[in-house]
């Protein structure tokens, strides 16, 4: 015979990771009948027996308020599952136990899987693994879904617990004495105050009389006291004196009181961590120092990104240079045709290699953002910025996706998902691309290096601030003309500060770097080749004179659009169009278009600056180019993410058009003012 196990837990408790650890790829995805919430099912074989596993939707409670809660509750009540595995995030035990207590009340066999014990230990806290099952009356198994430890023993416990119709021994020591006629403390984990227990007993008697076949009378009685809509509809009883009002808040509060009792007994927190958190918060969230501390932190991040990153970049350039000249010589000696040589050296190495040299800067930026996130500071930023942001009509929490935008716009727009307010989400999708992402950094480094060699970091910093200001102004304008004032509301948890974990930070940074490298290997590789083809071929076939190429034709056609903003050079316009595939491509395109192998070396820069100056492209034009790159249509990946997160292609086109318009107008203003100054 086979058994069925249901997995339940709060959102983000690692439930799905655990589920996948068991089932691997052996999954079925289906909808719950009648609703649109997805369910995942899998099966495993154990001791020659088939076990069916069902992943229930992540939920905080089992009221019938949301679709997820209803689905989870109905599944458990249906008796389909023989055992419920409740996945608990041990690092936020207080909150996860609320669901556990509700599950225990449902009267089905429950096994608690205590996940993320490694994080608890890292914070210097400890959990009493003997006392916890004693107080809950069910097995508690410490596991790590991520490291795949404890999986076998958890399944073992589930198999053996499936026939448990009674609780494990319950041993409570409540500080108050009970005068209730039954001593429920050895029967149920969650025992309420005497007056509520009296009511439960009376309702249970009434339920038994009226619905003799009803199982788990206690749970139904509690739900009737909470005036749960489903239970009141299906199992009404006529007890006006007992059910005189909703006891929901009493019941919830008493559950939390019991959770407090459990926590007090089983969790030994590190007092040092708490005291330290308060000390740090005293400064970082203070009325006066909060914002300066935040700005200071960001300044340090950018200083590191530029000063330290550039130093490492120097070594990368030497490497690319060597590769490029080595390849040239090698191809020459192999007798490769000039077309092939040109494709490899001018096209691929110039394009992809140019991008690779920026890896150190990007690595440092993501490292810094990961450290801020993992230390717990990022959520404080929401509090610090709430004052400013609420005046712009969004919650302080909306600032987090905006900061992430400094790293990469794609995860930033994904992070906007955490905002509850739909209008907040749309506004953030509209302005986050203005936050200067790391892909735009190569453009600033190149052009400020060429045209503002004395203070390139200052120029770049101004651009970052400029992007931020644009975002703020746009939000302010939307807020001012928005008739439906429905502000986002700030509600965010502030975890204890901790030393960032090497593993978490490492994974985060590695994923970003991998994305960047993949992009260099795919999008930029392809863009470089397409560009090289467009530039090397014209109506008359292969041509060494670029001004006769297809690229020149396209570029010249759209020059009139860019001339009023100081960018009326066809090579630049081609680079800008190519840049929509990915912003770094602006740089690699320039490298290819001007035929410079190592565009970031001092030599390459001087060479290119000279070429540009001959075309009448000076400091002001370079500034205009950087401003335009900061604001215009984001990369293809960002557009795709906006479409996915907003669920509408129309919204994506609106966003792209809006950003193009803003970029043009702002660059126009900069150019006109610049003409008077320079």
């Amino acid at each position, binding site marked *: 015979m086979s058994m069925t196990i249901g997995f339940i837990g709060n959102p983000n408790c690692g439930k799905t990771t655990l589920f996948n650890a068991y089932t691997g790829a052996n999954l079925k995805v289906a909808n719950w009948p009648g609703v649109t919430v997805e369910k995942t099912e899998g099966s495993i074989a154990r001791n020659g027996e088939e076990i069916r596993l069902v992943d229930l939707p992540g939920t905080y409670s089992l009221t019938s308020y949301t679709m997820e809660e209803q689905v989870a509750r109905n599944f458990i009540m249906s008796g389909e599952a023989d055992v419920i595995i409740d996945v608990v995030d041990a690092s936020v035990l207080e909150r996860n136990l609320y669901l556990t207590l509700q599950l225990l009340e449902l009267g089905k066999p429950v096994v608690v899987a205590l996940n993320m014990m490694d994080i608890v230990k890292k914070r210097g806290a400890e959990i009493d693994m003997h006392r916890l099952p004693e107080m809950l009356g069910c097995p508690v198994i410490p596991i790590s879904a991520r490291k795949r430890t404890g999986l076998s023993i958890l399944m073992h416990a589930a198999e053996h617990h499936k026939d448990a119709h009674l609780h494990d021994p319950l041993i409570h020591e409540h500080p108050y004495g009970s005068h209730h006629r039954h001593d429920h403390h050895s029967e149920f984990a969650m025992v309420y105050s005497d007056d509520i227990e009296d009511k439960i007993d009376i309702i249970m008697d009434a339920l038994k009389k009226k619905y003799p076949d009803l199982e788990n009378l206690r749970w139904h009685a509690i739900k009737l006291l909470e005036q749960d809509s489903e239970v009141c509809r299906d199992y009404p009883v006529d007890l006006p004196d007992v059910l005189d009002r909703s006891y929901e808040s009493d019941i919830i509060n008493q559950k939390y009181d019991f*959770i*407090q009792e459990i926590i007090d007994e089983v969790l030994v927190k590190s007092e040092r961590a708490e005291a330290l958190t308060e000390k740090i918060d005293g400064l970082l969230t203070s009325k006066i120092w909060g914002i300066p501390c935040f700005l200071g932190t960001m300044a340090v991040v950018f200083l590191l990104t530029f000063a330290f990153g550039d130093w490492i970049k120097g070594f990368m350039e030497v490497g690319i240079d060597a590769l490029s000249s080595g390849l040239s010589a090698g191809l020459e000696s192999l007798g490769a045709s000039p077309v092939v040589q040109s494709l490899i050296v001018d096209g691929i190495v110039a394009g992809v290699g140019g991008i690779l040299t920026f890896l150190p800067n990007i690595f440092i930026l993501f490292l810094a953002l990961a450290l801020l996130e993992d230390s717990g500071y990022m959520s404080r930023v929401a509090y610090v910025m709430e004052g400013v942001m609420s005046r712009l009509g969004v919650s302080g929490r909306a600032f987090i996706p905006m900061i992430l935008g400094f790293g990469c716009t794609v995860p930033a727009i994904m992070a906007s998902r955490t905002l509850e307010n739909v209008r907040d989400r749309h506004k953030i999708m509209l302005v986050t691309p203005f936050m200067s992402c790391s892909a735009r950094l190569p453009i600033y480094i190149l052009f400020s290096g060429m045209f503002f060699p004395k203070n390139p970091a200052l120029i770049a910093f101004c651009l970052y601030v400029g992007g931020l200001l644009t975002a703020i102004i746009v939000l302010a304008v939307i807020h001012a003309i928005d008739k439906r004032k429905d502000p986002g509301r700030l*509600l965010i948890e502030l975890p204890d500060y901790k030393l960032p974990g090497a593993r978490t930070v490492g994974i985060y940074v590695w994923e970003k770097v991998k994305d960047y490298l993949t992009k260099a290997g795919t999008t930029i590789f392809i863009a470089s080749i397409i560009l090289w083809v467009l530039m090397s071929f014209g109506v008359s076939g292969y041509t060494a004179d670029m001004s006769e190429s297809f690229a020149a034709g396209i570029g010249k056609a759209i020059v009139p659009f860019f001339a009023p903003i100081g960018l009326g050079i066809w090579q630049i316009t081609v680079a800008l169009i190519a840049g929509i595939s990915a912003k770094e491509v602006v740089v690699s395109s320039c490298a290819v278009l001007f035929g410079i192998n190592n565009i970031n070396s001092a030599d390459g820069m001087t060479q290119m600056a000279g070429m540009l100056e001959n075309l009448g492209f000076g400091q002001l034009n370079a500034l205009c180019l950087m401003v335009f790159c900061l604001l215009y249509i984001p990369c293809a990946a960002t557009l795709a993410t906006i479409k996915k997160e907003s669920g509408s292609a129309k919204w994506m086109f609106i966003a792209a058009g809006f950003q193009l318009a803003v970029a043009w107008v702002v660059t126009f203003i900069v150019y006109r003012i610049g003409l008077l100054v320079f």
Partner: protein
Amino acid sequence: MKLSQCIPGRTYRVKNIDLPEALSKRLEVLGMIENTPVSIYNRKGKGILIVYVRGTRLALGVNITENITVEDSGEGGKR
């Protein structure tokens, strides 16, 4: 009194929460409902707060705190 008017370092008891259902449900899950004790850690502006509720530190905006009524529980803050 409103939660937004509370003083850091003191503990209050929630009397009433007047917020859209989605939000009050989220607060409920965090253990913040009628009669829950709330300690105030930090306050700025017109009532942007850092509070301590049931083992969790929360930052709350003014448009939440001004819709929550509390009474002074007469206890000092649990800090």
